[in-house]
């Protein structure tokens, strides 16, 4: 699924990476525990999270995740957005809660990391 479609499905706003929305995502992972992301994520995955600190970017960077969706309308700081931009990431913010946002993406055909 292209990130552009993710954005539409989740009614998300784009915080950075507007020019990278045609990137393809193969699966998704929803987590607030970064150790779980490190333990389970596969390649070309998208991360849905409720956390907005720098460790989210570091974790994504480690796992080659290049799209992060902040749920429940959470807004990371401007510094964090810049940090994401520096790492060539697309950062999105959706008003939906984690479970609902995950369900919307799953219904639209984006599978889990297995």
């Amino acid at each position, binding site marked *: 699924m292209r990130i552009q479609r993710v954005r539409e499905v989740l009614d998300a706003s784009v915080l950075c990476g507007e020019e990278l929305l045609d990137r393809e995502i193969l699966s998704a992972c929803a*987590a*607030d*525990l*970064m*150790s*779980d*992301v*490190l*333990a389970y994520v596969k390649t070309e995955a998208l991360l849905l*999270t409720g*956390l907005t*600190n*720098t*460790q*989210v970017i*570091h*974790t994504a*960077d*480690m*796992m*080659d995740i290049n799209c992060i969706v902040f749920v429940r309308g959470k807004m990371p700081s401007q510094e964090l957005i810049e940090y994401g931009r520096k790492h060539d990431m697309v950062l999105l913010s959706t008003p939906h809660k984690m479970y609902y946002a995950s369900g919307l993406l799953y219904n639209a055909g984006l599978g889990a990391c297995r």
Partner: protein
Amino acid sequence: MEKLHLHYDVEGNDFIAAGEASGQVKRALRQLGIDFEVIRRCAICMYEGEINMVVHADGGTADVMVEKDKVTIILEDRGPGISDMELAMQEGYSTASQDVRELGFGAGMGLPNMKKYSDSLEINSEVGKGTKVTMVIHIPG
């Protein structure tokens, strides 16, 4: 023969910078053209270990040695040490504070992740003196 030796001083309790050394190691390994899966495993091991030094041990040093057939990661600190190693290795055991939990760590998965993703994990720790973690990840030939 050592192809590369990287050294980092890791600041204690700096919750923003934590993970930067790991990011640099990952980029260096990529430049060497090392296998994708090997890099991923190194990244996971180093990052969890770096976070542990920052949050549990007031920082320390990281050394990464790349040879033809393996990557060795050595993390050394002068923190409080680990008194019960068996307990520390258990999934879910953690002495981390709420501050650490808010970072997305502190669920007691770090050491188990390091064990799972390295080919060998050796921890030498002395209470009151510090901890030395040595991890080896083989590069398939």
